[in-house]
Each structure stands twice: as structure tokens, then as C-alpha cells.
């Protein structure tokens, strides 16, 4: 079995669908969603089976020897600098690979139904396959540039998919925002690579893991990579792109902006965990940023009205939990939460997609309600996801989230502040998720009559993934052996479950009978001013600065210098032109006068004996 096969299938899918799209776009005929979707889904399933094969192979091996490497070709090679295009599979990347291909396949399958009426499904599926290809590069790459290839590649795919409906300028703008904000983070990655090469002498991730570095340098590299992760994983300060990214089709939000791409930050932090452990300062920064993000976005989430935005802020919040886990040194717990989160958040997004599909692209939760009877499967699976994100036992979120909360207090890097903020975020999460659930499925209907009549349960291709993910959300927690043996762990677990129930109860009773639109605080709804600030500062600032540069430096200085040069040339020309009077006799006079001057000068020089060397 060849590791490259995992990458190859999505690549093939991308190529085939890409050509189908071009062909249909040229001829004007619409490509069939079923046909292109099946190609893309099969590619993902094939990739999943290869990964599953490796899973079986790994489970038969001793834990320390679970490592497969495969070098494909030499990429960049200059003097002592050598980067191979190599794949490396270990337990960490295998877990991510399984999530990407597994959840990815389900979402591809779901998309067949969701995109059935779209204009250019081939393009959609090509992008989706491209995304998976790049994401797999990210987790399988053995060297930093290779990871960076995936890192920027998923950014590209995300850009394309957010702006998938590119006739709408706003959606394209959201895509661009995501791409540019990610690139700001990517600069950190780039510089981290330069520093790594300077001090480690290799860009191989394994070498970096084992390197013993000067603490200051380890901290710098760690911090820069963390900065890159805040971009990709939507943490403070670079998180505002994710809610906007909801402009893309809903399955895309489920796959890219919930289950896989946004968790790549956690992957990378895990990869360099030995390095991070060398610098406690960076660890505490990561933990603080993580928990602050979790808390802040949970607050913002409480004031959202768009079903997808609520889920988006919830994703940011959950990612904050994962960063908290990494920051307190509980890397395993972080990765575990990546997996369970992939299950339940993908489930909830797909459920939301099912609702949106049924309501013909209505996304405001205050214009829904009472969908429980019309969408039984969606409702049932959504409740499973809700239970999982709240952390109710025995759902998967219970295991992963509680472990993070325990570790935030008990790990050597943890402290009370982190613990209390984590609990508070859990409380808020329970509140707004219940708010969402109740408003959409259980409260009295606030839909318009006409919409209400057309509501129907989604087709089988959409409900099967929902059911599978619901099962995974239920049992996913048992795939991991928790080592938590601390004496008051049980108290913390009880506390967190109680907190979740309190939040849920509050949400339930507040929104159970809601029949009008809630008036939320506009400041909170717009993201606590982050977005406004960025828009003012960067969105307007950079173009203004560019205009200023062009006006004051370019026009005033550079262009005027040139104008001055050309003016000088013309001026001197004009001055000299005035000697050209046209009268032959005037020229003659000038000639004679100048000749006399010259003659006198020469004679004078001769007398002083300097004209000829000899005298």
C-alpha cells in the first residue's frame, strides 16, 4: 500500500470534476450534480479506505513504531538546504487523516443532495476535492514547507468555496477576507521556517521536535507558529473571518470551517509540542488566548440570529477550548476534542443545512420554529449533536470537554482563572446552543405560511450522513482512554455537567414560548467591536494609506523628480535654442568672438608655459 494513494484519489477527483466543469461551462450545459458528486464522493471514500487500512496496520504495531515515511521526490535543494517532498504518517496524522477522509466522505455525500439544484456542481465538487487534497498534504507533510503547501492550499480552497457563489460580490469579499487574514498568520509560519532553518539547520518537523534549542529561540518559533495557528484556527486576534466565511454553502462550513481546516492549528501545535513545552511563556499565552477566545465568542454567540453564525461562533469557542488544552499541556485532550468536535459540529452544521435547504435559504432562527414535526430525522440528530456539545454523558463531548476542563485546573500549566473562564464558557455554550435548538425545532412556528407549506424532510443522501454522524457523536467519546485519575476529577465533572444543565435550562425556559424577534445588543451581535475595528483600521486604513503613499510619496516625490528632470532637459534646450537666431552673420560673429577668446587664452597659457608640457 502506498501512502500517496491517500492524496491521489482526491487529486484525481479534482482533475476529473475540473474538466467536467470546464466542458459544461463552455457548452453551456449544466453538469449533473449526481454524476459529479458521485465521482467526488467515491474519491473520498477510496481515500478513507486507504487510511482505514493504515489504521488497521497501526493497531497491530507497537505504539513506538507507528511511523511510516515515504519520500516522493526532492523539492528544493540548494547547497546544504534540502527539502524533500515527503509524506509521514504517525498516530497524530492518522487520526486527522481518518477524520478528514471519514467526515469528508460523509459531507461529500451530503453535498450531492444539498447542491442538487446548483448551477455548476462540478466546480463545487472539484473545489471540495481540492480542499481535501490540500488538507491531507497539511497533515501528512513531513517537512515544514510541505505543511505550508497544505496550509496555504486549504486557504485557497476555502477562499474559492466561501466565494463559491461568485456572482455575489459580498460573498467573494468574505472569501478574500478569510484568505488575507489567513495570510497574515501565514507570515508567522514563514518566518518561523526561516528561524528554524537558521538555528536547527533543517525544516524536517521530526528534527525540529527533537532539537534542543536556546529557550528564547524555541519561544520565538513557538510563538510565530502559534500566531499562524490563530489565523487558520480563528483565534483572537484573527478570528473575525470565520463568521463571515458562512457565506459559503453549508456543507463547506461543516467540512472546512468546523471539522477540518480550522483544526489544523491544533494539529500544528501538537506537532511542535516538544518545542512548546520548552517555553512556559508561550504555553501560557496559548492557554490564555484559547480560553479568552472561547469566552468572548460564546458571548457573541448568544446574540446571533443567523443559524450559521451561531454555529460559527460556537466553533470559534470550541477551538478556543482546544487551544486551552494545548496551552495547559494536555495535547492529547486537544486532539481528542478535535475529533469529537468534528463529529458533532459537522452534524450540527449539516443539520442546519438540512433546515436551510428545507426553508429555501432562510437562515434567521427567529423565522423558524416548530420544525420538530416536519423534520423528524434532522431534529433527532440535531439533539444528539446538542447533547454532545453540552457535554452530557455519555455523549462524546462529555469525555473530551471535561478532560480539558479538568486539565485546565490540574495540569502543571493550569490555574484557577483558566478553569473558571472555561466553566463560564461552557455555561454560555449550553445557553446559546439550547437557544438555537429550542428556537428552531421546539418553539411555536414563526414561519411565513407559504414557506411553511413547502417544508419537507431532506433526501436520503442528506439524512444518511446525519445519522452516521449522530452515531459517531454518541459513541465517539469511547474511542479514547482517559487517564484522568485525579481525586477531585469527579467533582469537576459533576460541576461541569451541572453548569451545562443550568445553562440549558435557562435557555429552554427563556425561548420555549418565544414568538417575536429578540432584540439583541447590536454591539455584541457585531462581534464586540473586533470586526468594526479591523474594518476601520485595516479595511479602510490600508487603502487610505495606499492612497496617501501614492499621493504624497509617489506623486509629490517620485513623479515630480521625473518631471523636474524632463523639465530641466526642456529648459536647457530652450536656453540653448535662444542662441540659434538663424542669421548667418550672427553665427559668424559668435565664431569670431569665441575664436578670439580661445586665442587669447591659448596665448596666455603659452606664456605661462603650462600649455605645452615641454616648457
Amino acid at each position, binding site marked *: 500500500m502506498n501512502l500517496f494513494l491517500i492524496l491521489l484519489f482526491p487529486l484525481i477527483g479534482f482533475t476529473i470534476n475540473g474538466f467536467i466543469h470546464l466542458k459544461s461551462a463552455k457548452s453551456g450545459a449544466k453538469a449533473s450534480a449526481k454524476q459529479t458528486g458521485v465521482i467526488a464522493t467515491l474519491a473520498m471514500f477510496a481515500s478513507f479506505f486507504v487510511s482505514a487500512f493504515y489504521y488497521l496496520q497501526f493497531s497491530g504495531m507497537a505504539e513506538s513504531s507507528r511511523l511510516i515515511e515515504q519520500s516522493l521526490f526532492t523539492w528544493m535543494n540548494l547547497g546544504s538546504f534540502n527539502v524533500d517532498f515527503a509524506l509521514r504518517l504517525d498516530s497524530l496524522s492518522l487520526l486527522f487523516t481518518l477524520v478528514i477522509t471519514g467526515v469528508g466522505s460523509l459531507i461529500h455525500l451530503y453535498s450531492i443532495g444539498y447542491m442538487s439544484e446548483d448551477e455548476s456542481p462540478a466546480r463545487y465538487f472539484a473545489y471540495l476535492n481540492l480542499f481535501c487534497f490540500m488538507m491531507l498534504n497539511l497533515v501528512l507533510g513531513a517537512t515544514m514547507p510541505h505543511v505550508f503547501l497544505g496550509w496555504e492550499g486549504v486557504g485557497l480552497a476555502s477562499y474559492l468555496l466561501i466565494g463559491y457563489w461568485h456572482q455575489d460580490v459580498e460573498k467573494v469579499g468574505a472569501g478574500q477576507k478569510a484568505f488575507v487574514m489567513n495570510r497574515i498568520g501565514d507570515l508567522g509560519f514563514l518566518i518561523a521556517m526561516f528561524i528554524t532553518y537558521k538555528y536547527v539547520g533543517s525544516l524536517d518537523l521530526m528534527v525540529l521536535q527533537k532539537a534542543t534549542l536556546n529557550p528564547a529561540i524555541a519561544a520565538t518559533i513557538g510563538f510565530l507558529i502559534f500566531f499562524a495557528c490563530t489565523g487558520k484556527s480563528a483565534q483572537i486576534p484573527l478570528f473575525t473571518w470565520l463568521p463571515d466565511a458562512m457565506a459559503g454553502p453549508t456543507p463547506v462550513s461543516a467540512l472546512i470551517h468546523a471539522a477540518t481546516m480550522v483544526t489544523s492549528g491544533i494539529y500544528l501545535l501538537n506537532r511542535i509540542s516538544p518545542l512548546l513545552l520548552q517555553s512556559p511563556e508561550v504555553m501560557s499565552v496559548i492557554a490564555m488566548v484559547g480560553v479568552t477566545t472561547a469566552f468572548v465568542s460564546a458571548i457573541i454567540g448568544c446574540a446571533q440570529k443567523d443559524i450559521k453564525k451561531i454555529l460559527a461562533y460556537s466553533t470559534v469557542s470550541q477551538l478556543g477550548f482546544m487551544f486551552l488544552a494545548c496551552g495547559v499541556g494536555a495535547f492529547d485532550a486537544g486532539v481528542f476534542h478535535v475529533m469529537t468536535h468534528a463529529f458533532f459540529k459537522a452534524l450540527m452544521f449539516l443539520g442546519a443545512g438540512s433546515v436551510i435547504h428545507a426553508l429555501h435559504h432562510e437562515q434567521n432562527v427567529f423565522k423558524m420554529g416548530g420544525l420538530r414535526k416536519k423534520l423528524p430525522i434532522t431534529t433527532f440528530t440535531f439533539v444528539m449533536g446538542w447533547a454532545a456539545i453540552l457535554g452530557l454523558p455519555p455523549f462524546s463531548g462529555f469525555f473530551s470537554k471535561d478532560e480539558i476542563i479538568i486539565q485546565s485546573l490540574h495540569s502543571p500549566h493550569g490555574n484557577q482563572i483558566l478553569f473558571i473562564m472555561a466553566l463560564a464558557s461552557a455555561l454560555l455554550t449550553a445557553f446559546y446552543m439550547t437557544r438555537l435548538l429550542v428556537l428552531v425545532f421546539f418553539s411555536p412556528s414563526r414561519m411565513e405560511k407559504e414557506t411553511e407549506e413547502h417544508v419537507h424532510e431532506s433526501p436520503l443522501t442528506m439524512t444518511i450522513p446525519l445519522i452516521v454522524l449522530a452515531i459517531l457523536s454518541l459513541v465517539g467519546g469511547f474511542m479514547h482512554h482517559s487517564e484522568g485519575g485525579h481525586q477531585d476529577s469527579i467533582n469537576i465533572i459533576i460541576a461541569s455537567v451541572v453548569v451545562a444543565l443550568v445553562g440549558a435550562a435557562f435557555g429552554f425556559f427563556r425561548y420555549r414560548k418565544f414568538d417575536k424577534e429578540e432584540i439583541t445588543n447590536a454591539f455584541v451581535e457585531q462581534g464586540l467591536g473586533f470586526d468594526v475595528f479591523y474594518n476601520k483600521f485595516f479595511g479602510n486604513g490600508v487603502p487610505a494609506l495606499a492612497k496617501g503613499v501614492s499621493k504624497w510619496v509617489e506623486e509629490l516625490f517620485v513623479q515630480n523628480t521625473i518631471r523636474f528632470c524632463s523639465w530641466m532637459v526642456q529648459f536647457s534646450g530652450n536656453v540653448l535654442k535662444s542662441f*540659434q*537666431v*538663424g*542669421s*548667418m*552673420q550672427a*553665427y*559668424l*560673429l559668435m565664431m*569670431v568672438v569665441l575664436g578670439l577668446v580661445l586665442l587669447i587664452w591659448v596665448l596666455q597659457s603659452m606664456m605661462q608655459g603650462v600649455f605645452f608640457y615641454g616648457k
Partner: protein
Amino acid sequence: MMLVVSCTVFLIGLMGVIFRKNLLIVLMSVELMLNAVNLSFVTFSKMHNSLDGQIAVLFVMTVAAAESAVGLGLVIALFRTLKTADSDQIQMLRD
């Protein structure tokens, strides 16, 4: 003595070329300058007892004849097109 005369004549010719307006007089002044040069040639030839100077004079006279013929022709042609022989009116060297 003869050199002083030749110098004076040459300068008179030069002034004539530069300051006289009529092209015919300008041409005559050119002849005057040439003849001043011829005079100094002959003088020098006498002083140095060599014939080189006198040969040069013959050359100069030949060329002067040819030159005045061409010059006159040009002046007439100019007069025909511009209806004037005043050098101030002829500024075709400009532009």
C-alpha cells in the same frame, strides 16, 4: 609693413562679412579676406625665399574664383526666391 597692410585688409573684409547687409558686399568682403591672405602668403614667400607661398596663392586664387562663381549663383537664386539680398531678411537657418 606688408603684413600690417594684409592684416588690416583682412580685418576690413571680416567686418564687411559680419556687418554688411547686402549679400553681394558680403561676397566681395570674402574676396577681400582671401586677397589679404594672398598678400601675406606672398610676403612670407619673399621673406623666406621659398616658392611654396606663391604656389599656395595660385591655389587660393583658383578656389576663390570657383567660390565666387558658386557664391554669386547662390545669391542670385536666393534673390529670385526671396526677392531680397538683405542678409537680415534671410533666416532660414532657424527652425
